[in-house]
């Protein structure tokens, strides 16, 4: 019985740890840590306006994408 408790605890903690690791790897891959200065300064320029800006940018992008692929 004892050994199953140990096995489970090991399994669960390695699983949880690996989730954190995968999140970190995703962060590196998607370039979130590329520019350390900007990364640290980002908090200063965060707000409603920035959020809106990001949304408009995304919308603009989708629209333009649609336009480019319209059937000719």
């Amino acid at each position, binding site marked *: 019985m*004892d*050994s199953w408790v*140990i*096995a489970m605890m*090991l*399994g669960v903690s*390695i699983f949880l*740890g690996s989730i954190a*690791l995968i999140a*970190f*790897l995703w962060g*590196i*891959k998607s370039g979130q*840590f*590329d*520019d*350390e*200065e*900007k990364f640290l*300064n980002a908090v*200063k*320029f965060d707000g409603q306006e920035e959020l809106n*800006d990001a949304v*408009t*940018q995304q919308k*603009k*992008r989708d629209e*333009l*994408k649609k336009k*480019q*692929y319209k059937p000719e």
Partner: protein
Amino acid sequence: MSDKVSCTHCHLEFNQDVMIVDGEHYFCCKGCQGVYHLLKDQGLGNFYEKVGNTALTPPTQQYEDSANFNSPAFYDKFVSVNKDGFSEVSLIIEGIHCAACVWLNEKALHKMEGVISADINYTNNKAKIVWVDDVLKLSSIIDMIRAIGYNAFPYDASLQELRANKERKDYYLRMAVAIFSTMNVMWIAVAQYAGYFTGITQDIKTILNIAEGVLATPVLFYSGWIFFRGAYFSVKTKAVNMDILVATGASLTYIYSIYITLFERGEAYFDSVTMIITFVLIGKFLEILSKKSVADTLDIMSNHIPSSIKVIEDGKIVSKNINDVKVSDIIAVGSGERVALDGEVVSGEGNFDESNLTGESEPIYKQNGDKIISGTISIDADIKYRATKDFAHSTLSNLVSLLEGAMSNKPRIQQLANTLSEYFSAIILVFAFITFVVWWMWPHSFETSFMVGISVIVIACPCALALATPVATLVGLGIASKRGILFKQAAQLETMAKATTLVLDKTGTITQGKPKVVKEHIYDEFDTSLLYSLVQNSKHPIAKGIAEFIYEENLHNLELEAVKQLPALGISATCNDKKLLGGNVKLMQTEGLCQDTTLHVDASGGEHSEFYFAYDGKIVAKYELFDTPKEDAAESIKAIKSQGIEVIMLTGDHKKSALKIAEQVGIDRVEAELTPDGKSSYVNELHKSGKVVVMAGDGVNDILALATADIGIAMGSGSDIAIDVSDVVLLNNSLKSLNDAFKISRKTYYLIKQNLAISLLYNAITIPLAMAGYIIPLIAAISMSFSSLLVVGNSMRIRLGFKDK
């Protein structure tokens, strides 16, 4: 005197009366005012809250016409189309001072119709912009960046830099996995070894083994992939390297551990697998971290090459690719455009900016029959010229190819650790094999002999060896950068430590580069204000020296007419119909003013630079100027010499003044009157005689020599190209830090050697023990970390002796 107020846009402070008043705001120039109103109109006014009190660069007039960016040839070179069909370009943005600048640029670009994303890196000011080319053109993007007070030019990102970044990111990922797993394996291993000494049942051991195995697998196959790849290449090229040792050691241990786990034979050694890979990976990563990309340098040079040319054929302007233009084609250059080929003006006139080739910051006036040089920019000239050379033979293209050549032919001194590890790895593999065979012959079970063989590889595994060089160089680089010495690449510390010869440029390196008047000869009375107003028109160092010398409170600027810069001669102007001339002997001779022998005009050139001033056809004064050496020059050169380094001075100046400086600072070998080419071939000759050469310089005329030398050192105040080409930059321009650079690199090299000795000594003790079978992998793992710590600790000793500052 009125109060100082700061400009609302750039925050630079000026006297109130020179500022442009606009409501309650003050501006230092029209540019700042324009940007301020533009930002307000665009609704980006809160930029000023974000920027705080940081001083910005006032917007400057851009000579180059942005329409050039729309040419097909330019698009071919810099603009790529991504998979969504959007256009992409990489730009370097100039004038970024703070995070708010990045914010402003991104915001302003995002507001533009058609821009999909603008991503600016604050650390290196490089931006990636994605936009729809049907909606707007690249030139509008550049115009926007210029309109808000910055400047941008494109660079080819597909080059090495991108590759280097990718490699670095790849290492990050692999290291993250390795470090995560190692740390987790370690606490499982603690349980394992605690059980080893206090008693533990086999089924618990197996559970721990399986957990370790799960963690070790990604380390070996993902993080360790680099070593397998390296081992494969080394087998292919038949050169044994450290990668083979790491790869075989780690994978043999891994296989053996699986065997132990499956057959329940006690403790597995997965912890050794992860530790070997993690340590050596960190060592490799540190090496990569300090490599510079040559690409960056050449980006800036090739940015000077225009991609399409306007050729006039049968009275019509045809756009041609630069390589298709032939000699004696007539080429049109408008204002704001760059000249691509060497040639001769056939019609039109105007001013040219030659600063990026000659370093001369004054515009130079060209008219019919004058030669124009490729790479220069037309400021206001609208001319036609006849190409006298094709592109491949033009000055600009020559310079770029000379530089490329010099950089790729640079002698590479192999790093000590690399040479060592080649032999080391081969020897260890042989030893391990012999151990295994001997143990097996000497009747032992296959299992035991295999175990002992592996322990030899594991104990010898060059963790300490791999860390010896990178850790020491990183500490060295850190100390150097605190003292204003920037090494662009870690390996250069080692090269510099081996240097035998130091070659110094005179102007700006040994001397201050600011000539001072040492003697004044007045031949006739004249109004000093005249001379003052005249020299105010020139940015030449000699003119500045004169202005500084004659400056008095009651001088006033007079209205001068027809001011003309005469390159390599001086300046001329008229005031109230009287002609003013200021310049060197040659100018006086061409103007025919040297008949009067009483003036002792000496055309051969003395120790000092001479400046003559003629008023109304008569020489009225002569000034002798001398560029004095930097304060610490003599002392520092003495210190460098005492380290056993030969010091040589090279200069383009004439011999007499060179010798005088050399005498003052204590240099015995002087080569004077050298062309930029001459400097670089002199360095080459030193190479041929087996010297390791360090060259220090600051000007555009030194770049070839800087690129040719083993180590090129540029002064921080030097021209941009010189800084780009060099390997080391001295931020505070002093010769004292040059001496420090030598000291730090020698100390670092000494400690690298010591580190290598420590790790080899450690191996010399442990390998025989391992061969005799006294070392189980547990002890191997512990001693491995111990030797690594020893090497890291030893590297910290570089700091000793450099503590005073």
